[in-house]
């Protein structure tokens, strides 16, 4: 069963059409890696999945719910921002530039959602946050502020922060692109573990090695449309489309 199903998704910024009918589906427990040249619309698509952007046409379904809508009496009603917020709870997102809350410590960052969105008692939330930091290998950094952490550590805190909401889907937008090369591994390791634990993930990345290791499916996007999709060994090793071949020749 598909946890995520996108059908004919279109999105324009002003007069430029950034997504031109994207179709994509992700089964529960699957990891899908999204590859493609800069400007292909990968980030935009990811942001549409958790409704950080609204779409102009098509539909995205997550866990049976139309993103940005509620179904009543056979009609789709557009959600208010408050209700959209509720829908986003189940979808975790990790950004290229971490976006940790700089005025809160690592453990406070992780507990922020549970306490102020889920209304979990603070003591319980902090305990769970510590456990999550332990899971990403940062038990000893609980009391550190983001600016006291390396990029790799910040990104792992950001992953823990997303996990604290117990999401059924995790979106990663180039999670290692802003990192020094020697810090990429520690973040990818956490993501590999997450994939092994059965988390459903959509990962925009240029890390072909990671895609080969954990992806169930690799989707190649160019100019706002999916050009090629399939298992990693097929798309990465025997691409059928010329655009894919050209891109991979540059990245590999």
């Amino acid at each position, binding site marked *: 069963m598909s946890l995520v199903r996108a059908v004919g998704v279109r999105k324009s910024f002003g007069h430029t059409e950034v997504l031109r009918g994207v179709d994509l589906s992700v089964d529960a427990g699957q990891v899908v890696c999204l590859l493609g040249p800069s400007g292909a619309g990968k980030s935009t698509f990811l942001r549409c999945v958790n409704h950080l952007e609204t779409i102009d046409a098509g539909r995205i379904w997550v866990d049976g719910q139309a993103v940005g809508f509620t179904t009543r009496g056979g009609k789709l009603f557009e959600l208010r921002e*408050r209700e959209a*917020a509720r829908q986003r709870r189940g979808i975790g997102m990790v950004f290229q530039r971490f*976006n940790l809350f700089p*005025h809160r410590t690592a453990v406070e960052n992780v507990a*922020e959602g549970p306490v102020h969105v889920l209304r979990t008692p603070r003591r319980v939330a902090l305990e769970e946050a510590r456990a999550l930091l332990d899971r990403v290998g940062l038990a000893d950094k609980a009391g550190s502020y983001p600016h006291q952490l390396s990029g790799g550590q910040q990104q792992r805190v*950001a992953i823990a*922060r*997303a996990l604290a909401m117990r999401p059924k889907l995790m979106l990663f937008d180039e999670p290692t692109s802003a990192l020094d090369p020697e810090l990429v591994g520690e973040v990818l390791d956490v993501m590999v573990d997450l994939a092994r634990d059965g988390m459903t993930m959509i990962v925009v990345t240029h890390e072909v090695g990671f895609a080969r290791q954990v992806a169930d499916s690799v989707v190649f996007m160019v100019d706002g449309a999916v050009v090629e999709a399939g298992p990693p060994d097929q798309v990465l090793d025997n691409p059928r489309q010329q655009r894919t071949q050209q891109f991979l020749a540059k990245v590999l």
Partner: protein
Amino acid sequence: MGSDIAPGDVEQKDIAPADELVVVPLRHWGRWVVGAVILAVLGALGWALADAKIDYAAVPGFFTHDIMLRGLVNTVVLALVAQAGAIVLGMVIALLRRSANPVARWFAAGYVWLFRGLPVLLQILLWFNLALVFENISVFGLFEEKTNVLVTAFVAALLGLGLNESAYMAEIVRAGLNSVDHGQVEAAKAIGMTPATTLRRVVLPQAMRVIIPPTGNNFINMLKGTSMASVIGFLELIHAANNIASRNLQIMETLLAAAAWYMVVVSVASVGQHFLERYYGKGVAR
């Protein structure tokens, strides 16, 4: 670029081991001269003041005079209430200014234009004389009262000072909100925060770093600005000083006592600002 001097070109005989050379420290003659001039000027000034026809012994008495203390309390209360109201109103106006609703944005811009544009003293006088044009004030028939009962000197001063300040606060808050990286809002949304929670937990605490220093400055101005309320007979520090002086004619002495109170109150406000800045500076690399 590219230097013509290759390594080894420097002649070795110019470079002796450090301990063989006598070190001549730099003498800052200029500093001595400037320091001396400043001290001389201050000395002359102090001497002149000591020699002035001021009865310094009377000042402490005026400093703790009953009327002066009432003026002090009124000054502080007026400044605090006006500033607090201005902060709340300013926040509302700043949010309207960023609203998706064009009518709200226009209103907010017009509000700032109007209340920032008029002199505070003029605004205070307008409010104080409101009874000349509106005899009664009524709110949808639910409430009615004579204007000159409702708009006392305190209320007029509060409106004049507070509304003017709220226009400045709106701009300060707006700058603060704009200073927060948009990625912060996205991160908050991504963990399912509502817009209100995002504002309260993520955006405002970070905006505070930008908001507090100019607000502290403005509050100090507000403390001094309350003196304008003396014009409409409100018993703040200056009015209190005049009041006392009108009986004993020791004008300079009573004004000095009021001046001392202003310095005390402003100093306390500065210290408070320092601690607020430290609190909201959490998580910022120094």
